[in-house]
């Protein structure tokens, strides 16, 4: 047996929970080719040769968002032999809307009814057999959280594919829509067969006015004209346009089916409970303070409470491992340069990045709870107004906020954002939120130059970062990202208990993601930086860093920073070292200057120090963040472009600060 299933469904219907039940920890996460849409797949537990691909949560097979296009292309391809469609029965009408479109694909398909327990306990019910009869596909009731019924579901799904049981009916229409669909079916029959597209699906999409479908079928102009004529006729008879007509047809059919087979209490207990919770959480006055409080709590847990303890313990572990390697190398009498390369280069680089790992894991645990409980949608609801001005939606708020802790998890967290445009734009703006690793730089420089105004300067830096981010947002909105943002029409799902399993899998997945990065990109980068610091251009080891390539390059590029007021090579070298990890800016500076105290002699004026701080705030992020960007944007080229952009912005802003500062007499 070798079967691949596509797992499809709306957002918030328990799809991820079901996926985790099906596959356990044997999951592989990647991207669909060419887009930043996540593709998760895995083998189904206990069924040798059965494989499942988790598709993005969507509401319709429309041609608009990247998620929808990917789903559609995948379902139309030959890869999945069967479809498992999971729906939330407490919200059955809207969930079935996607189901009807997938039935038209005429692939073997099974419908999984999730959250039956919730409906039953609230006095509702579903006539499972009746529903199956009305829709013409097998229907199985499951509980994704506890795993009840999942076994039956898989058996049924496999049976459907093996016996090639296809949906029994495809006619959900009546009246003028029915007539139009059937006329179109006749016209495109040959084309559909030729291009291997399900006939009925193609006809519905064409009547709906779906451009990509016409292209896919390679229809003649004359055919298109006839189709257009048919559809216009339908529109005239109905008095509504094509898109509304088809949506209406589907919903009318669904309402009929539900009337016959579903008893809905109107509002389940969970929905009533959610309404009560929301009276507090999205309250007019307390809503925002409560959100900020929750985020503060998340930050405190990650960066204040659990994070440091775990990080400390983890660092100890890393240090002792490095110690062991060190000892081994000494005993094996490896040549000093190789020894230093391994210990001071590779191990130190990976070690410093690995110490982030616990923080990232804890942070994603908190985030997954916020997401799974349904609170994240409320955050979008509460904060949307604020982000709309820069062309984003409330959904981007949390990732940006996390950016103040660390850009790496912040960038990783953008994956749940709907719409590729919003995702890319958010990634681009996150590094402007000053991350916690830059704090030591601010502290040391402020201490040396403006000990009295330290808090003020620090606050000023954070605000500058946000302001530049907003400004860039404005510019991007009207240039690079002029495209329409993802429509902000968002479901507010009922609050539910998060599944510990899902949180665990998410943590594990993010940790794995990060580890892969640490041992590939970051490993390479650490070695390169070590080589630069320890070799001269003849590739000889240097005893004094001042003779190294890093410093030589620093001297070479220092003039670039002259207009910004800090043309000293020490600054340039430190900024380069900062690409490994931002903390390294301070350590490199003190090493090159001969002690931290000597940093106070680095700049001739306070204005130069400010300019340097602004540049550090804004210039390209560290390699770990770069690796995250590469992963999420899906390409080194795009990541490199973003780094160049950021460094350019940093240069311009610092230049303005310095020039205006000079003009104002500072």
């Amino acid at each position, binding site marked *: 047996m070798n079967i691949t299933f596509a797992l499809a469904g709306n957002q918030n219907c328990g799809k991820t929970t079901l996926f985790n039940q099906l596959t356990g920890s044997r999951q592989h996460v990647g991207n669909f080719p060419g887009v930043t849409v996540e593709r998760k797949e895995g083998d189904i537990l206990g069924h040798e040769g059965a494989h499942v691909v988790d598709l993005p949560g969507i509401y319709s097979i429309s041609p608009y968002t990247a998620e929808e296009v990917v789903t559609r292309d995948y379902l139309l391809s030959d890869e999945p032999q069967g479809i498992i469609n999971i729906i939330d029965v407490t919200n059955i009408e809207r969930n079935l809307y996607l189901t009807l479109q997938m039935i038209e694909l005429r692939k073997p398909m099974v419908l999984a009814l999730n959250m039956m327990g919730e409906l039953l306990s609230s006095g509702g019910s579903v006539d499972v057999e009746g529903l199956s009869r009305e829709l013409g596909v097998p229907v199985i009731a499951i509980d994704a959280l506890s795993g009840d019924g999942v076994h039956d579901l898989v058996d049924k799904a496999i049976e459907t594919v093996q016996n090639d049981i296809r949906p029994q009916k495809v006619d959900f229409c009546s009246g003028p829509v029915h007539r139009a669909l059937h006329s179109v079916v006749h016209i495109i029959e040959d084309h559909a067969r030729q291009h291997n597209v399900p006939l009925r699906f193609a006809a519905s999409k064409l009547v709906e006015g779906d451009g990509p479908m016409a292209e896919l079928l390679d229809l003649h102009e004359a055919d298109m004209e006839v189709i257009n004529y048919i559809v216009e006729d339908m529109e005239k008879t109905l008095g509504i346009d094509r898109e509304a007509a088809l949506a209406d047809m589907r*919903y009318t059919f669904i309402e009929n089916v539900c009337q016959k087979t579903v008893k809905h209490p109107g509002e389940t207990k969970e929905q009533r409970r959610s309404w009560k919770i929301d009276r507090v959480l999205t309250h007019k006055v307390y809503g925002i303070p409560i959100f900020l409080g929750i985020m503060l709590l998340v930050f405190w847990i990650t960066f204040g409470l659990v994070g440091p303890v775990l990080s400390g313990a983890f660092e100890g572990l890393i240090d002792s491992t490095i110690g062991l390697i060190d000892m081994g190398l000494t005993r094996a009498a490896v040549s000093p340069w190789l020894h230093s390369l391994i210990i001071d280069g590779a191990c130190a680089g990976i070690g410093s990045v690995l110490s982030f790992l616990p923080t990232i894991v804890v942070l994603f645990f908190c985030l997954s709870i916020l997401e799974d409980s349904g609170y994240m*949608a409320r955050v979008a609801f509460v904060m949307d107004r604020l982000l709309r001005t820069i062309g984003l939606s409330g959904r981007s708020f949390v990732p940006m906020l996390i950016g103040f802790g660390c850009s790496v998890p912040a960038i990783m967290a953008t994956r749940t954002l709907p719409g590729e445009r919003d995702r890319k734009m958010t990634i681009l703006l996150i590094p402007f939120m000053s991350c916690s690793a830059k704090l030591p730089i601010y502290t040391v420089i402020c201490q040396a130059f403006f000990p009295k105004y330290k808090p003020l300067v620090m606050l000023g830096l954070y605000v500058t970062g946000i302001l530049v981010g907003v400004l860039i947002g404005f510019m991007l909105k009207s240039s690079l990202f002029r495209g329409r943002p993802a429509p902000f029409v*968002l479901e507010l799902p009922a609050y539910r208990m998060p599944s510990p399993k899902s949180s665990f899998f998410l943590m594990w997945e993010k940790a794995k993601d990060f580890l892969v990065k640490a041992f590939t990109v970051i490993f390479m980068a650490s070695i390169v930086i070590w080589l630069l610091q320890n070799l001269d251009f003849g590739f000889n080891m240097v005893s004094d860093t001042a003779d190294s390539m890093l410093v030589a390059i620093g001297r070479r590029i220092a003039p670039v920073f002259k207009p910004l007021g800090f043309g000293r090579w020490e600054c340039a070298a430190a900024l380069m070292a900062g690409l490994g990890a931002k903390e390294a800016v301070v350590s490199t500076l003190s090493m090159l200057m001969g002690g931290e105290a000597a940093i106070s002699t680095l700049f001739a004026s306070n204005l130069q120090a400010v300019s340097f701080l602004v540049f550090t705030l804004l210039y390209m992020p560290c390699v770990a963040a770069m690796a995250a960007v590469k992963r999420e944007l899906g390409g080194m080229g795009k990541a490199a472009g973003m780094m160049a952009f950021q460094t350019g912005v940093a240069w311009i802003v610092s230049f303005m600060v310095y020039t205006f500062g000079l003009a104002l007499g500072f």
Partner: protein
Amino acid sequence: MTLDKLKIGENSVIDTVGGQGALRRRLLDMGLTPGTKVAMRKKAPMGDPVEIKLRGYELTLRLEDAEKITLRGEGK
């Protein structure tokens, strides 16, 4: 009357759905079709977006988008 004018606690029925492209399609896909009953539930702390209830679930959308949805008669 348009959906954005519906007062909190009021119900009405959708008459037409305007807008265009991805937004309009999204509204229709989410079940905001002509003849659907909607209820205004609440406004976000900054006054926008709003939360509505339809087809047994809660949905949030922006006022500028709600303005494109007309209702049959007044809210009640």
